[in-house]
Structures are given as structure tokens and as C-alpha cells.
């Protein structure tokens, strides 16, 4: 690539006398990259290879597939990914348009809006967990005060509980994606919109013919990356529902950790390996996008 084409000329200019071999510049370059490579090999590559090696026993998959929780977990994971990501990205796209407006109060709001992302998950998720407490939580007590009827037992209904963890996940990650999509919108040339306004385009038409075509690539990249990251979201489910009631709201991430806590390491590895058919195509697409 172009970067490697430039490299000899800098080194050559620095040490013109040495025609071949390792210039001091290259030697320093290698020495300075090595710390990171060590970190990467020791704490990323080796664990990944080790995981595959631990997961090679077919027996652990048999046991995994026999576990009634597993099938439910796979369904939960797929539903979680499909609903949470589409909802989150669509809302992020809309909100990025909202934050484009120049108003003093929107500027303040945008600063507040980042909070869920900047603040650690555990206090806020536990706060929501208590809000949803059927007896003592503020939501059901308010429902009772207004209607004199008991509210739903939020986290005791598997479907509702899973949906609430999705909302928790969206609450936490929405600011990040909105910010990314906002920067994408800001990169669109303003005169395109001015020209469209002169032609009398409606805001829907502007979105359809200017915003979306410029944003589609970024939106897709974000959605793919978000799929991988959502797959690895442990906190939103574990801290809100703990996988319950009756282990019915697990996703692959929480199930893997659950086996690990039960000292069933092989089962744990097998759990994450079953996600590979989903992860590998995503990684392939992302790599292709990045290397362009």
C-alpha cells in the first residue's frame, strides 16, 4: 500500500550511507510496536485459540444441546439481537436528525443525553431493577395510586423481562450510536439540502434522496458492529433479570458466564462457539469494509 511505499524514503534520507538491512528507524519501529503485539498475542490471540482448543470435544456440544435452557437461550439471543438492534439504530438515526437542530436547549440536552453511555452500567441498571420491583418499586406504586390496581410483575414474566433488558441495552448504547450517526449527518454537504429546498423538496424527500443515500453505508457498518457488541452485552441481561425467572431470559453471553461460574468450562466454551455461524460472516463483512 501507499504507506509501505513511503517508508524506505524516510529511512533512506535519515541514514543514506546504509543501503540495505535494518535501518535504526525500522529497528526502533519494531521495538515500539512489540509491547502492543505482546499484549495482543497474550491477551487476545492466545485466549481465542485456547477457547477453540477447549471447545473441540463433541461431547460438550451434546451435553449443551441436551440442556433445555440452551434452546431457549438461542431463541432469546436472536430475538434480542433483531429487536434491540433495529430499534436502537432506527431511533439513533431519527435522533441524530433531531440533534442537528441548532437551539440552545438542544445543545444542553445533547450533553445530558450522553450520560447513560458515560456512566457505569451497574448503578443505573440496579436503579431500574428496583423501579420495576412489583411491591416496592416506584412504577407499580404509582400505578396503584392512580388506578388502585396492582401493576404487572415486570421481571417475573420472561417475555416482559427480556424486553425490558432490551430497553436497558438501548438506554445504555443509544447515545453512542446517535453520536456516530450525527457525525455522519454533519459530514453531508449543506448545499445539497439548500439545492433541494430551492426545488421545494419536503423534509421526507430530503431524507429519502439526500440523507439516506449518504448515510446508508455508515448505518450498515454501525448495525453490523452493533450486532457483535450486543452479542457481548452481559450487563443488561444479567444485572436486570439475572437470567431469570427460571433461567428463561438468558442470552448466549449470560449462559456462557453461568456455565463458567458452575465450573463447566467446556460447556461455557461450547456456548460461545455456537455463536460462530453468526459472528464469522459479520467479521468477514466488517473486515472487508475496513480494508477498503
Amino acid at each position, binding site marked *: 500500500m501507499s504507506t509501505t511505499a513511503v517508508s524506505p524514503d524516510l529511512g533512506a534520507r535519515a541514514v543514506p550511507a546504509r543501503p540495505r538491512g535494518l535501518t535504526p528507524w525500522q529497528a526502533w519501529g519494531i521495538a*515500539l510496536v512489540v509491547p502492543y503485539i505482546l499484549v495482543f498475542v497474550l491477551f487476545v490471540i492466545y485466549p481465542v485459540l485456547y477457547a477453540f482448543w477447549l471447545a473441540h470435544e463433541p461431547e460438550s456440544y451434546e451435553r449443551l444441546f441436551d440442556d433445555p435452557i440452551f434452546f431457549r437461550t438461542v431463541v432469546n439471543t436472536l430475538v434480542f439481537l433483531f429487536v434491540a438492534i433495529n430499534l436502537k439504530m432506527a431511533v439513533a438515526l431519527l435522533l441524530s436528525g*433531531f440533534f442537528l437542530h441548532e437551539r440552545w436547549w438542544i445543545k444542553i440536552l445533547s450533553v445530558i443525553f450522553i450520560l447513560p453511555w*458515560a456512566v457505569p452500567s*451497574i448503578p*443505573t441498571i440496579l436503579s431500574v431493577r428496583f423501579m420495576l420491583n412489583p411491591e416496592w418499586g416506584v412504577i*407499580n406504586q404509582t400505578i396503584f395510586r392512580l388506578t388502585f390496581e396492582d401493576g404487572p410483575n415486570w421481571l417475573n414474566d420472561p417475555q416482559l423481562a427480556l424486553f425490558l433488558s432490551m430497553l436497558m441495552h438501548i438506554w445504555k448504547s443509544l447515545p453512542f450510536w446517535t453520536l456516530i450517526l450525527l*457525525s455522519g449527518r454533519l459530514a453531508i454537504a449543506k448545499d445539497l439540502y439548500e439545492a433541494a429546498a430551492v426545488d421545494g423538496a419536503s423534509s421526507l424527500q430530503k431524507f429519502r434522496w439526500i440523507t439516506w443515500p449518504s448515510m446508508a453505508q455508515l448505518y450498515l457498518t454501525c448495525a453490523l458492529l452493533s450486532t457483535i457488541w450486543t452479542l457481548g452485552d452481559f450487563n443488561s441481561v444479567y444485572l436486570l433479570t439475572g437470567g431469570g425467572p427460571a433461567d428463561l431470559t438468558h442470552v448466549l453471553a449470560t449462559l456462557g458466564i453461568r456455565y463458567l461460574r458452575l465450573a463447566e468450562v467446556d460447556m461455557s466454551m461450547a456456548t460461545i462457539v455456537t455463536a460462530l455461524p453468526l459472528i464469522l460472516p459479520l467479521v468477514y463483512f466488517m473486515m472487508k469494509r475496513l480494508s477498503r
Partner: protein
Amino acid sequence: MTAAALPPALPRIKAPGRGVLHAVSTEAKLLLVGIPVLIWTLLPIYHLCLFAFSDRKSAFAGNLWPADVTIRNFEIVLGQKHYFLTHFWLQMWNSVFVAAMTGIITLVVATFAAFAISRLKVKGGRTVLNMALFTYFIPAAFLAIPMYRTMGLYGLLGSQWALILAMVAIASPYAIWVLKQASDKLPLELDEAAIVDGASPMQLFRLVYIPLMGPSLVAVGTYAVLLAWNEYLYAFLLLSNDRSLTLPVALGNFLSADDSPWELLMTTGLIYALPPAAIYYVFRRYMVSGLTAGAVKS
């Protein structure tokens, strides 16, 4: 009558009127989005504060605002006056230590790597960068599982260094990437001038590169510190001893008890959430520009 005079005046009267109406309806629409967004964002945080500033009775009564604002909970937490909180200050220090170490090591490792790739044009630098980004294509919770085992093999399990090194491994790729983007923008002539003056690579690094990279270094350091401070899962897996726990793990342990003192849990949670919020707002300018610089490129 006056009808003859009216027509030319009409559009002129109507135009600003319609403009005002249009402006008002735009504002109304914006508010219709803005108010729900504000409530949605602040509700869990408000509830957290509500609990922290209420006594137990008021908090459990489902009041929407505190019956009596009290700082009693803060006194209990900061004075370690509850058996759940006997190590509060130690755990706070552990969190500070882990976050600070992660920030420092990430900065050193990532700055070296970015300098080598971007300025020294080390061979294969581009490949290293692409490989590094591969880290983010492994779902975090999935990497945690084999990481737990490998840390055991390395003999680091239970030590805070296990958590620090794991966080460095996760923070570095983004750090290197942001620093490389920023340092690619520095003019090549600077290096050439330094070389003509007989500077060695390390002199170039210390005297030219580091001073010019200030804002990006702040962004990257802040990012690494926040990442480590906020991390729950890795801390929960890699630390076990009561005295080496970071705050989030201690908070998670509250949950295992049936009679959890929720008002103290929320108070501790609020104290724990304040530093990252403050750091974020102080360094927001740097962080947002670092974040979005990458996004537009993709």
C-alpha cells in the same frame, strides 16, 4: 371600499404570520421529541439520586420525590458504617488504581505503536493495526470466558493486574487507531527537519511527536480510564478476594443478599458513577472529536 387596497398588502401580512406559525410548529415538534428524550435519559439516574437522598422508609414508599432530603446514606457509606461496606474506601482505591494503571499503560503502549506505525512507517504496521481492530469483533462477554482461563494459566487470576492487562488489551486498539489517525495529519516536514538536525528516533518521539499529540493523548487516556473504571464483567470474573475487589463488583455482591440495603446500594452507586461523569464532562471536547474522527472515515 378598502378591498382595492387590501390585495397587495395581504401577502405581506400573511407571510410573516405563516412564518411565525411555521416556526412555532417546528419548535413544538422539537419539544415533542426533546421532552421524552430528556425523561427517558434521566429517569434511571433520577431514581438513583432519589434513593440516595431519601431515608429507607421514604424510598420504599414509592415517593416520586424525597419526603425529607437527607444525607444520612452518604454518612453511612463514607463512614463504612454497614457490614456490606466495610471495605468501601479500599474498593474505591482499587477502582482508582485499576483505572489509573489502565490509562497509563494504554497510553504508553498505544503511543509507541502509533508512533512506530505512523511516523517510523514500520513494515507491517498497517497489518498490526487491522489485526488490533479484530479485538472489537469478538463480543466482550465471549472473550471474557477464555480470558478467565488464560489468566489462570498465567497465574494472574485474582490479581488486579489481570484486570488491568485485560483492560489494556481492550482499550489499546481504539487508542492506537485514534492516535494513528491524528499523527498521520502531522506534516512529514517536521520529522524531516528534526532528522536533518540529527535527531534520533527517540528524540523525535519525545521532543516533536509527544508535544504535538496532546489533545489526542488526553482523549485516549480518558477513554481508557473510563473503560476500566466502568468495567463490571471482567472485574467480576477476574477478581475474587474481598480486599482486591473494585467498586462495581462490590455493588454486584449486594444483590446476593435477600435483605439488601437498597438505599445504601444506590448511594454507593451514585458515588461510584460521579467520577466518570465528571471526567467525561471535563474532557468531552477531546473525546467527541476523537470518536467522530473515526466514524466519518468509515
